[in-house]
């Protein structure tokens, strides 16, 4: 299991990227030199919680509470793995 998916890891947005809410696009975006990734809603909600202080378990609990959902752990783990492969986050 990679570090980003360990439930006690505290992922944070990588220094190579800047996460920002863009009103005009109604979305969270990741900015980098001469480029931009527009995140969908769930990706944005996960990423904005990757602040280096919350563990993956806390992020999941937080999301479940915010959206009145349960069983999000797998989806979050899957996304974090992808985000790590893209170097959007580091732990």
């Amino acid at each position, binding site marked *: 299991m990679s570090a980003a998916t360990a439930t006690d890891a505290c992922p944070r947005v990588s220094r190579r990227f800047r996460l920002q809410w863009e*009103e005009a696009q109604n979305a969270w975006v990741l900015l980098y030199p001469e480029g931009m990734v527009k995140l969908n809603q769930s990706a944005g909600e996960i990423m904005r919680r990757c602040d280096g202080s919350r563990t993956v378990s806390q992020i999941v609990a937080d999301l479940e509470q915010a959206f009145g959902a349960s069983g999000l752990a797998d989806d979050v783990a899957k996304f974090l793995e992808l985000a790590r492969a893209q170097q959007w986050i580091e732990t």
Partner: protein
Amino acid sequence: MSAANLAPQPGPPLWLLAELTYRCPLHCAFCYNPVDFATSGPELSTDDWLRVLREARAAGSVQCGFSGGEPLVRDDLEILVAEAHRLGFYTNLLTSGVGLTAERAAALKAAGLDHIQLSFQDSTRELNDFLSHTRTFDLKQRVAALIKDNGWPMVMNCVIHRLNIDYIDRIIEMAVELGAEYLELANSQYYSWALLNRDQLLPTRDQLERAERITNEYREKYGDRIRIFFVVPDYHEKRPKKCMNGWGNVFLTVTPDGTALPCHTAKMLPGLAFPNVREMGVRDIWYESEGFNRYRGDSWMKDPCRTCPDKEKDLGGCRCQAYMLAGDPAAADPVCDKSPAHGLVVEAVARAEAGAGRSAPLVFRDPAASRRIAAEGG
């Protein structure tokens, strides 16, 4: 409601390209500034630019590129970067590095500059031996150190052409040595000064294949240490590029005199008035002006594009190239082998293969040459 009102609303101008000045200490023979740049009107003032930044940000722009000419020539660059940063732009500086002192680098960092793209342009006119020119290397080394020291990512760009393409290995090694994390090897595009010098600058097919092969070898050798992008010249292709990612779709260029353009060469197109930021707000420019609406989407197309199954893929290519080569901005980009004018591109490549440019002198970009060309009618 008219049919035009039912057309999908274009997205925001995500990318603002601020061409702060046409002044530049260098004389690149492939310069993308218009050939008549020296006759351009007065530059926008600091206040004009501050207003453009605010209006563009309010209209949804998020990436801001400061370019030129050499943007460091403007001594208000730090003020503009600071305002762009305050507004929430991601700020990019496109520079040759000439004029970047430790003091200015520190001031730009403090202003919130996110990224510098350092290009390999040289101060010598000896294009083919610029690699062995120690002044170039010293300058790049000094600037690369400033970039590193300030914690910016190291992004380098080198325009590739017939006269330097055979040294691609040395260019890559130089970039590695300077600590580049990203290297863009961008073949010259044939507009403006590069079009004047096309016979001398267009590489042959053999040169191109060799350069791509060597680039791939270096990619394997260095892996993640440096990411290398290789942009082929479209003359060697059979399908055009989706120019600017679509006309009036993502990019808003503002030239030094305040003209707003969908791309930096669009001013050449006949019968099309482009607004000036001194007279019109950015939102109206983007959504309402004729210049930005003319070639949006695909309703302006003629055959072969109009009925082409690939028309959404490339949107018919580049309007400027269609005008320059086929004489009609609404024609298919002649790079496309379905274009009736494709023969002109084939012919240009054949001339390159035959070494047609060997005897003719290069025309270097400078204000005197620019005024002469403008006087001769472009």
